[in-house]
Every structure is written in C-alpha cells, then in structure tokens.
C-alpha cells in the first residue's frame, strides 16, 4: 500500500469532500492562496475558487459565521483556526453556539460544521500556541471530538466529519503532519465512536491519543522485549467515546495507563478513568494510572518543551509499576 503523510491525507479528504458536495466551504486565516500555515489546504483555492477563502483574524467571527451558514442548510462549513489554542478566543461560539444551537432551538436546525484545530507541543511555540484543549469540550454537549493519530485515521475521520450533519471539533497534532503511514487509494470512511486497537497485548492497557499513540507503541516494543505485552488503544474520537472497546481491553488486562499530551488535571484521561472505575472496578488488578503534561503553562523554551511531552521512559516506568501489583 502507498505511504503518505498526515498532511497529504487530510488534504485528500478535503479535496474529495469538496468534490463530492459543492456546498462545502473552507475558510480561515491564510487558508486560501497561502494554503494554510500548516499547508493542509494547499491548492484548494486554485481548484475551488470562492469556496476557499481567507478571513480576517477574527476567530469568534469565523466560528459564528460558520454557525450562521450551517443553520441555513445551504452550506457545509469547514473552517480552520490557525491554532487550537485559539478556541479560547472563540470559546462562546464553539461551546454555546456550535454545540447547543440545534438543541436549544428545539432541534429545528442542523449544524454540519467541521472546525479544524491544530494542537500540540511543537517547535517552541510557547504557552498559547502549544496546548491540547480537547478535554474542555468533552464537557460541552453537542460537540463531537476527533483526535487522529495516523494518516489513515485522519483521512477517514475527516471525511466522516465533513459529511456529518452535526458539529465536529477536529484536532490535529502538529507533529503528526509529517508523519507517514499507509493510506489506501480507494475511498473509505471511519465511523465516530469506534476506538482502534493499535497493538494487541494481554498485560496492560495503554489508552493514548494523537502523538502519544506513537510514544506508547515505542514503549510497548521495549516492554515486549522484557516480556510485558502492552495493548495500545486509540479512542480516535473522545466524543463519542468508545467505552465498549476500552472496557473490553481493561477486562482482559486488569491494568490501565492513560497517556495524553493534555495537562493531567481535567484532561480526557480523567473522564476515561472515571468511566472505567464505574464499570469495571473489580476487574482491575491495580489503580488506574495517568500520564499527562504537567499542570503548568507550556514554556516557550524549546529545551524545556520535552519535559511537558509524555516520554517513552515515563510510559515504560508506569507500565512496570503497574505490573508489580
């Protein structure tokens, strides 16, 4: 099978969906002629003209306008915020309008928006351009949350997101844009709410998202050499969350480690851990462990950055500790 990077996979998804439905609109800061600061929308403006447009630097207006377009039923907006951190600027529009407009108006309108949000620690971007704010939105009803870890997942999930008639927050880890993976030529979709077992194992369940899926897989290789078999589960969507697959793995291994780049307190792992203990406490042989980034703002210093990102060593150590129970 051919191998492409995640940026190309996302661009293919955008291209195919714009081709498929001519009401699909792509807009945001520098997404037009410039192709987006991460080059995910490169070439779309040349191909689709006014269906791809640059907007002023105005995140609340970008998201609000997407809502106003979507509820007419005449457009399928796929806006981009340059950094996922900027969700903070547009918080009300995302949390209260995108998520709740349909419900609070009695279910009379649809909200086919896919808001793309590049996230993650990358390149010394500092405290307001490096965060992973996805868990904030797990608390907000009406929002579906996607966080892919591979080019294959990214493409299939983005296509599903764009076709969906409900609001989607699509988080893309910036360090994954250049990461390559197998992606078939032929079309496919990946449903929401279906976790993927990236590696099977019988001793410890490691639940990881985005870049951390890869760190967990590296740790699993190392641990396997010492005879510990780790199962790596990638939820792929945090809302809806596939607890069935997670619980089935937990019941098999009895040991759970949750790893994400989100800061630990109130991260998505907190919710996942809470749901596991509600359903499977007596299947556990050990306490549920979590690794997240420290609960302090992300320093600009690129040297310090590595101390925020969960490492292979941390995962190996945590798994070994779990195996002591």
């Amino acid at each position, binding site marked *: 099978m051919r191998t492409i990077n995640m940026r190309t996979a996302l661009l293919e998804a955008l291209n195919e969906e714009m081709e498929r439905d001519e*009401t699909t*609109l792509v807009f945001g800061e520098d997404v037009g002629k410039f192709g987006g600061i991460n080059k995910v929308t490169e070439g779309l403006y040349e191909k689709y003209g*006014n*269906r791809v447009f640059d*907007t*002023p630097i*105005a995140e*609340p*207006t970008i*998201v*609000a*306008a*997407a*809502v*106003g*377009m*979507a*509820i*007419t039923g*005449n*457009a399928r*907006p796929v806006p981009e915020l340059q950094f996922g951190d900027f969700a903070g600027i547009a918080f*009300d*529009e995302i949390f*209260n*309008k995108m998520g709740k*407009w*349909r*419900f*609070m*108006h*009695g*279910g*009379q*309108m*649809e*909200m086919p928006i896919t808001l793309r949000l590049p996230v993650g620690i990358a390149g010394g971007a500092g405290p307001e351009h490096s965060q992973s704010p996805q868990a904030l939105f797990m608390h907000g*009803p*009406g929002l579906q949350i996607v966080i892919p870890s591979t080019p294959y997942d990214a493409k299939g999930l983005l296509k599903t997101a764009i076709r969906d*008639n*409900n609001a989607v927050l699509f988080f893309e880890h910036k360090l994954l844009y250049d990461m390559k993976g197998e992606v078939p030529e032929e079309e496919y979709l990946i449903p929401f709410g279906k976790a993927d077992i990236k590696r099977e194992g019988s001793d410890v369940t490691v639940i990881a998202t985005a870049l951390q899926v890869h760190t967990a897989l590296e740790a699993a290789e190392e641990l396997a050499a010492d005879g510990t078999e780790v199962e790596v589960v990638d939820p792929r969507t945090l809302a809806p969350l596939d607890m069935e697959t997670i619980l089935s793995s937990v019941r098999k291994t009895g040991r759970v480690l949750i790893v994400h780049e989100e800061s630990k307190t109130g991260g998505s792992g907190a919710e996942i851990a809470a749901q596991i203990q509600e359903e499977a406490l007596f299947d556990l042989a050990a306490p549920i462990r979590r690794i997240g980034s420290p609960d302090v703002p992300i320093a600009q210093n690129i040297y310090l950055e590595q101390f925020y990102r969960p490492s292979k060593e941390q995962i190996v150590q945590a798994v070994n500790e779990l195996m002591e129970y």
Partner: protein
Amino acid sequence: MAEIYKKETQLKDYSKDVLLDFYRTMVKIRKFDEHLIRLMQEGKVSGFYHSGIGSEGLSAGSIRNVLRDEDYIYYNHRGCNQKIAKGVPLSKIYGDFLGTTEGTTRGLGAGIVHSADPSRGVLGQAGTIGSQLGIGIGTAYASKFKGTDQVTVIYFGDGAASREMLHGSLNWAGLYNLPVIYICENNEYAISCHVSETHAVKEHIADWAYGYGISNCVVDGNDVLLMHEATKEAVERAKRGEGPTFIEAQTFRHRGHFEGDPYDYVDGELLKDWKENKDPIRNFVSRMLLDKIAEKQELKTIDQEVEQEILEAIEKAESAPQPEAGRIYEGLFA
C-alpha cells in the same frame, strides 16, 4: 457622519391594506406583550422578559410588507416584536414561554431567545446578547454564496452594539459585500447605562458603519412608515448586490429592561414625553384618522380581533401538555 434619514411620507402613497397591516401588527405586538406580562404576574411564566412596548413601529415597519418568508431575521432581546411581525404563530411563542409542547422548541421552553421558525426565516437567537451579529453574517454569506436574493436582517440593541462581535461582523459585511441589514434598536439604555456612558461614538452608533464603508443612517424608529422606507431602501440595495446597510433606529422603552426593573434611572418627564407624544401606535392612529384612512370604529374592530386572536393563542398554548421528562434527551444531534 451618519445622517438622519428624512423622507416625506404620505399615507396616500400606501394602500389601505398595507396601512392597516402595519396597524394590526403593532397592536398585535403590544397586546401580546401586555398579556405576557399578565401571565408572568399570574406566575405562569418564569424567567426574564424584556418588554417591547413603545417600539412596535420599528419592527412592524422594517418587516411587514418588505421582508419575505425566505428572508432571514435574527431578533434582539426585545425580539417578540420582530418574531410577531415575521409571522411566527402567537400560540407557538406563548407555548415557548409556558414551556408546553405547543412552543417552537416542542416543550424545551424559551424566553424571548431560543424560539425559532426556520420556515419563516427565523433562525433563532443567542442568550448572550449580540452574538447574532456574527451568526447573521454567516447566514448572509450563505445566501450570497448560493446566489439567492435573500437578505438577512440583524436586530440588536444599543447595548449589544458594544459587543466586540459588532466590529468583526461589520468588517466581514463590508469586506465580502454581504446582503445584510443591521438594525440597531437604540432605546438609549443598556439596562441602566445610557448609551453616552458606554459607547465611544462621534454622535451616533451608526457612525461606526462609516469606517467599514457601510451605508448607514439614523431613523426615527417610532415612525412606522419612515422605518419601512429606510428598510426598503436597504433591502433593495442588498438585492442589487450592493451590500450591507446599517440603520440606527431611535426609540425608547416604556417599561424597564426586565419586568421588576424599578426603571428609576430614567427621568420621569422624559419617559412621559415618549409615552404621550412619541408612541408609535398612537401617532399612527392620529395620522390615519386625520387623513381619513380609517374610522375609529374600524380600528376598534381590529383591536378586538387581535385581542381575540391572542386569547385563542394563549388558550392553545396553555392547553398543550408539558413535555415528558425524556424531552431533554431529544434533538442534541441530527
């Protein structure tokens, strides 16, 4: 800076049907409001209510006989005025207030905000004041993109005009030349703060539109015909593809911001002047009688018909059941 919209209006330039439609709409808005306040006093309606009494001409004039069902409106925090003018059934609006399944939200309940009627271009409203300024331009963008001649009218008060979103919205509207009409219902007070205490403007809020290259004017919002003419020009401009218009409509509320507001921050003499000399309905009646458009009895008959219509709407809304508890789990996703 923004100019005062001036035009000599003559009743004889309008058909009697149109004039009586303006009258009926204004009376409907006022009586709707009075009955809603009664229902609140009877303890049947919870939440906040922002009475639109005193500003009926603004909504009737800018919607009736100029906007079509397919044109969109985003109403403001005195938005029952606009919903009624746009034709949302009264029983459905009362149903939202009463929380019965007759409401547009099928029992979820809504105050002024959150009722919607997409079949009449009423796409809802946010609880957070002024958010419609951003959402409305997306709707206007969608119409332009689709190539229809639909216009979007965004209503907002002087208070909402201080939201940051106004500027993001005006920038898009001007930049993309959108078919959108801003109607700033300037009743001078954002709860207790006078517009002069909260807005940095040369003279009028509409002055801001100049900076964005947007056509604008200041109009007497209590003159239903003047309001109609100003809006009609804006609608025609939008349909010609000449972009947005900002209309600042001057009015005053007869009651406080919310029911229970002591409204003691307004000078009593000033309020009396607005009520007695600038009431949109009273002044329109005087003109119609003077020009012999209608007899007193004819208008009285309309009043009675409207009263009856409202009582029937309330009866329909009240007799509908409260929703089942399971209603809260319906409709989050399509």
